[in-house]
């Protein structure tokens, strides 16, 4: 039978070990402590942020942004205001209105694209359902405002970010997405080309047929003509 307190001493040895090792154990110093900021020197590579001005890692997702290709945000906007994300958004935080030109013709881009970040829960469903790769997740989270009524409502122009930005924050994912898009595009183009070729062929065939018809036309017309004559 042991003295009362033996188990306590055992536990105290553990805490003392942790106390001492917190000063001398490199692994513990850099990996296990509360990280003040992820870019603190010595932080392991896999948690290093993609950019120096955020504290988040290349894998994390935060709030959605809209992507555009090229330098002109509205020129290269990928979103066509199809409103699938608006419908699918679980907390209903997206609001979209289609854009029309003067003649009232739908011009395949949003006039209004608002995301209420106070409602958004960063679930990434919008990214998944988007057929145009127009919406992706940002990693910026320093978004606090002093205005609690609407200050977190992000508008279209605030949401638009370039594809290069996306490559900066999520390099792997962006590359994969671009590859897939390129592939799809190539496929589409191939399909298109095939379709075009088919169309052309069809057209040619049609033309040929027409020509043939043209050619054969005079024949029946001849009797008519003849008949008329």
């Amino acid at each position, binding site marked *: 039978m042991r003295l009362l307190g033996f188990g306590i001493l055992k536990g105290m040895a553990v805490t003392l070990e942790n106390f001492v090792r917190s000063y001398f154990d490199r692994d513990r110093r850099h990996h296990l402590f509360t990280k003040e900021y992820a870019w603190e020197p010595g932080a392991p590579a896999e948690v290093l942020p993609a950019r120096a001005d955020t504290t988040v890692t290349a894998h994390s997702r935060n709030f959605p942004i809209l992507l555009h290709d090229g330098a002109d945000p509205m020129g290269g906007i990928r979103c066509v205001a199809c409103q699938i994300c608006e419908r699918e958004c679980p907390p209903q935080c997206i609001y979209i209105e289609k854009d029309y030109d003067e003649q009232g013709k739908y011009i395949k881009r949003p006039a209004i694209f608002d995301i209420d970040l106070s409602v958004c829960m960063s679930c990434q469903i919008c990214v998944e359902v988007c057929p145009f790769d127009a919406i992706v997740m940002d990693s910026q989270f320093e978004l606090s405002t*002093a205005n609690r009524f609407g200050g977190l*409502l992000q508008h279209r122009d605030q949401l638009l970010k370039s594809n290069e930005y996306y490559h900066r924050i999520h390099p792997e994912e962006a590359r994969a997405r671009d590859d897939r898009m390129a592939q799809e595009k190539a496929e589409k183009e191939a399909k298109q080309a095939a379709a075009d070729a088919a169309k052309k062929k069809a057209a040619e065939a049609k033309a040929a047929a027409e020509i043939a018809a043209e050619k054969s036309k005079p024949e029946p017309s001849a009797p008519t003509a003849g008949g008329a004559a």
Partner: protein
Amino acid sequence: MSTPAWHEPVLQQFPAVRWDGAARALIVPPELARAVAEWLTQPDHGAWDFCSNVTGVDYLPREVKEKSKRPDGTEEIVVRTEPGSLQVVYHLYSVAQRSGPLVLKQVVPRQAPAAVSLTPVWRSCELQEREVYDLFGVSFEGHPDLRRILMWDEFTGHPMRKDYAEPQDYEWEPTPHGDVLEKHRRGKVIIA
């Protein structure tokens, strides 16, 4: 998915119990529910000792259109209203025999729904039946402590019913929302 025919002995023992093949559930009349439940817990009747899940399902009355032939041979569309119902669903398992699930349903009318509590048989129903009472409005006869559980006591209505219409804005009255707005009117809070 095929499940063994655990329900057949029940049907033999209790002729009033029906078997819903589509839902794979036993439809038990409320007045028989206690007896069926107690019978089911017996070791030689399947030892259904573990009632895992209790919940309610609300079916609204719906209109069914049926074609029928008149005696004179012309067709007529008859609109018949199927009465709605509330179901209380119990998912039973047997820890002893590692079998399950056996689904038990009590079907009660939507107006003044009264089911029989199975809490005396399976203690696990206690909180869950309270929840069904709270959210669906089914009252359970023989429940030891039937109070609202998730909604507050002063709440009226049963939110899980399909015809429940929620008020415009819950947050308006009982939260500081109103005060905040008042402050805003006095120029202390900016609302975009």
